[in-house]
């Protein structure tokens, strides 16, 4: 990994806005790894602080938000300060980006140390389990119908689980860890190649980590968490393909791009569309620039054909899955602009991957983070235009970065919030190219250490803002999923119900359940549990009386068991998996007893207080 470090450092350093400082300010005899050991130690200390905050949260003794934030900052700020400094050599920068990426991944792993508890994780884990159980791909998924038809993530996870004997959870952690490694390395190398500076590469990773999904959403066991890194690797490979020194390297990168495109297409729908669109737009940009040499027209054509073929031949259900999402987002934006519907109140939405409950400091960080990026972008864009405007690839990425701010505006439209939030992690790749240029432009007059401190402070604000915007405060920390009582380990009520269902009723049963319970049943009871509003199981379970449409609906879906859960939290697919508070203001809100009693004419086979299971076959 190091044999070409010096050569690469010299080759890419020449034309950069970063290069002068880098060469001049590097102390003679600086070790290859520089401050890496020290910064590994600070990152570990930061992670320990996060672990303590998580532990306090799991024991329900304190929210420990302050400790959590302190831990995050101790992980992020020192590494970013060092990446901003001119002194480190390339290998140290590369290593630091890896440490940063993996340490922030561990923040999510520390949150869920006993099993998957993110809504999407509990959709993908049953897919992987089904592959291990049946030895074949493409099974039905009761929650997200499209997911089994993109089996990339589950295939790799099943391969590792099958070969190693690890659980899907253990294998999934490793797969997503590898994905995290890939995205930070590939982004570093991509930006290094584009801007001709390892320092820019390091700062790009620091900027990208400030996107609202980096710490939690993109670290979950979900198809996008693997597909997006593969997309970035494909873009990196394209960057290398353009600068390939000989025909052999060109062929190597061509094969790599084709294989990676195939992997993305079979792993995640939206990411594959994003990759195809990116190649198309770059090809158009080349044409507009009057150059066809190095244009990715062939890669764009391959991506379009692969996406189309997969959609038609394998994953046609995707159309029905995605169309309502985009249609509703589009209508919502239109209605908000025309004044037909009120804009969404920021920081006031429902629980979940939202910022509801953010305090004044949190809101300040979120707004401040966006403001910082907004200020830095124009300076970076101007610098990019001045130095790199002849490179259509760089220009396209810069435009993508600008679109990040459009997604912030779209967050005001109630139905477009999620689409806007999800697109951020793609478009942030553009900000990761532009913002480092802005940082160097604005801070260029500062001397080495002062510049590093200023850059770290600014980017830490952006990073904190991203974390605030990305995940609701109460769910950033670990929740009581398993607790210790009387020297034994007690699982949460929903988890115990799922284990009971597998042990007593057996696998393959069909249930209607709340969002959280259904996911637990699908994951831990090998069952088919439907939930949510399509079909409208949520209203069926919440209504106080048994309406005329409800039993026919259950029959239509061949449901044999109804799992009622009086905890309103059970209908929240992000918060319903954990122990609740016994008393006090945080105690669970409950549905009226009539929501359960309406099924009394059926066999009542399970009662755990909040959760009651009815068997729908009348005798």
């Amino acid at each position: 990994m190091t044999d070409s470090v010096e050569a690469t450092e010299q080759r890419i350093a020449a034309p950069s806005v970063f290069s002068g400082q880098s060469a001049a300010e590097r102390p003679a005899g600086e070790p290859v790894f520089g401050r890496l050991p020290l910064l590994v130690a600070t990152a570990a200390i930061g992670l320990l602080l996060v672990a303590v905050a998580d532990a306090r949260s799991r024991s329900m003794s304190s929210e420990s938000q302050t400790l959590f934030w302190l831990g995050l900052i101790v992980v992020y700020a020192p590494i970013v300060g060092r990446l901003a400094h001119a002194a480190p050599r390339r290998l140290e920068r590369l290593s630091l980006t890896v440490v940063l990426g993996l340490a922030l991944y561990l923040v999510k792993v520390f949150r869920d140390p006993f099993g998957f508890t993110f809504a999407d994780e509990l959709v993908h884990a049953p897919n992987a389990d089904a592959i291990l159980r049946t030895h074949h791909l493409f099974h039905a998924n009761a929650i997200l119908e499209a997911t089994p038809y993109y089996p990339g993530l589950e295939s790799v996870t099943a391969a590792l689980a099958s070969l190693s004997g690890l659980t899907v959870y253990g294998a999934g952690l490793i797969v997503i860890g590898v994905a995290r490694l890939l995205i930070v390395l590939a982004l570093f190398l991509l930006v290094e190649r584009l801007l001709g500076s390892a320092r820019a590469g390091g700062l790009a990773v620091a900027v990208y980590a400030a996107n609202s999904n980096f710490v939690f959403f993109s670290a979950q066991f979900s198809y996008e968490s693997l597909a997006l890194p593969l997309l970035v690797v494909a873009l990196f490979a394209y960057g290398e393909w353009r600068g390939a020194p000989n025909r052999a390297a060109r062929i190597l990168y061509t094969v790599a791009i084709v294989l990676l495109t195939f992997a993305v297409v079979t792993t995640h729908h939206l990411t594959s569309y994003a990759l195809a669109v990116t190649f198309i737009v770059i090809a158009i940009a080349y044409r507009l620039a009057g150059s066809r040499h190095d244009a990715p027209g062939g890669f764009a054509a391959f991506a379009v054909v692969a996406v189309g073929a997969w959609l038609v031949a394998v994953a046609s259900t995707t159309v029905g899955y995605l169309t309502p999402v985009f249609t509703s987002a589009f209508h919502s934006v239109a209605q908000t602009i025309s004044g037909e519907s009120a804009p969404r109140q920021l920081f006031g939405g429902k629980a979940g991957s939202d910022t509801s409950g953010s305090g004044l400091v949190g809101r300040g960080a979120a707004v401040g983070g966006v403001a910082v990026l907004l200020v830095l972008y124009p300076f970076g864009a101007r610098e990019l235009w001045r130095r790199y405007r002849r490179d259509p690839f760089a220009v396209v990425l810069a435009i993508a970065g600008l679109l990040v701010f459009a997604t912030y505006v779209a967050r005001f439209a109630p139905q477009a919030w999620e689409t806007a939030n999800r697109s951020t992690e793609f478009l942030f790749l553009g900000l990761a190219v532009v913002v480092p240029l802005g940082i160097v432009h604005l801070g260029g007059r500062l001397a080495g250490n002062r510049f590093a401190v200023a850059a770290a402070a600014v980017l830490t604000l952006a990073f904190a803002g991203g974390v605030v915007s990305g995940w609701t405060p109460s769910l950033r920390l670990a929740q009581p999923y398993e607790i210790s009582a009387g020297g034994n380990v007690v699982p949460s009520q929903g988890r115990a119900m799922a284990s009971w269902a597998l042990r007593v009723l057996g696998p393959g049963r069909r249930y209607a359940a709340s969002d959280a319970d259904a996911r637990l049943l699908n994951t831990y009871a090998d069952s088919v549990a439907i939930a949510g509003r399509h079909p409208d199981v949520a209203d069926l379970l919440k209504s106080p009386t048994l309406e005329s449409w409800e039993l026919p609906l259950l029959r239509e879906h061949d449901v044999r068991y109804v799992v009622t859960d009086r905890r309103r939290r059970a209908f929240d697919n992000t918060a319903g998996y954990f122990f609740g508070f016994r008393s006090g203001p945080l105690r669970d809100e409950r549905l009226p007893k009539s929501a359960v009693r309406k099924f009394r004419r059926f066999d009542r086979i399970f009662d755990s207080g909040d959760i009651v299971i009815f068997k729908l076959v009348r005798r």
Partner: protein
Amino acid sequence: MTRLRALLPALAAAVCAVVVLLSVPVAVSTIFAVPLVFVLPGYALLEALELRTIGGAQRAVLVPALSVALAIAVALVVDFVPSGLTQRSWAIGLFAVVAAASGVAAVRGTSGIGLPRPVPLGLHRLDVVALVVAAAVLTGGVILVRTPLAAKHAQGYTILSLVHGRGSSIVVGVQSGEQRKLRYRLVVGAQNHVLYRNQNLILAPSERTTVRISLSRRGQPVTATLYRGKQKAVYRHVSLR
């Protein structure tokens, strides 16, 4: 010599495949499964495509990324085989990919990047101390997050279940998810007569008990009621109609 060295990834893949197919502990099989899934397929492919033409960092990205892509491809192909994606077919499939790529590299003579030049680490004593501290702190953190903790404010629960057993029997289950050892009273009845009664059922947290009761005829209505301690209020109730 170059051609022979091109077969080294295939040899390594064979070793990994054999080890994971043996009944070895999970920790050992994981050590051999990880390179078989994440390293060797991509590495062998890059060797076939003249790995030496690209830099070390580029290799570090492409090796795992292409390995993942190839693992997905193997899954899609092996899915068509009747036996499907078993441990053996995974091992054989991934080995086959590595062997094929190594064969191409051997024929083309494209293998052989040589070992990386040793990098002068230049680690000072303070650096070593920092790394040791980091390892210790991280280990402590992992142990802490993996330890289930007491949560005295958590709402406990008790599960009461009732299902049909074999023949005309029924199975009553009680499982405690409470915070402390509790005493219960369990009453199982059918049509105004008691089938089973336990006035002193004591369960520790996470402990469970099962009672099988034979009915005179299958299908008669049965109820099970659980009381907590000496309380008169029904704590849990289940029924078969």
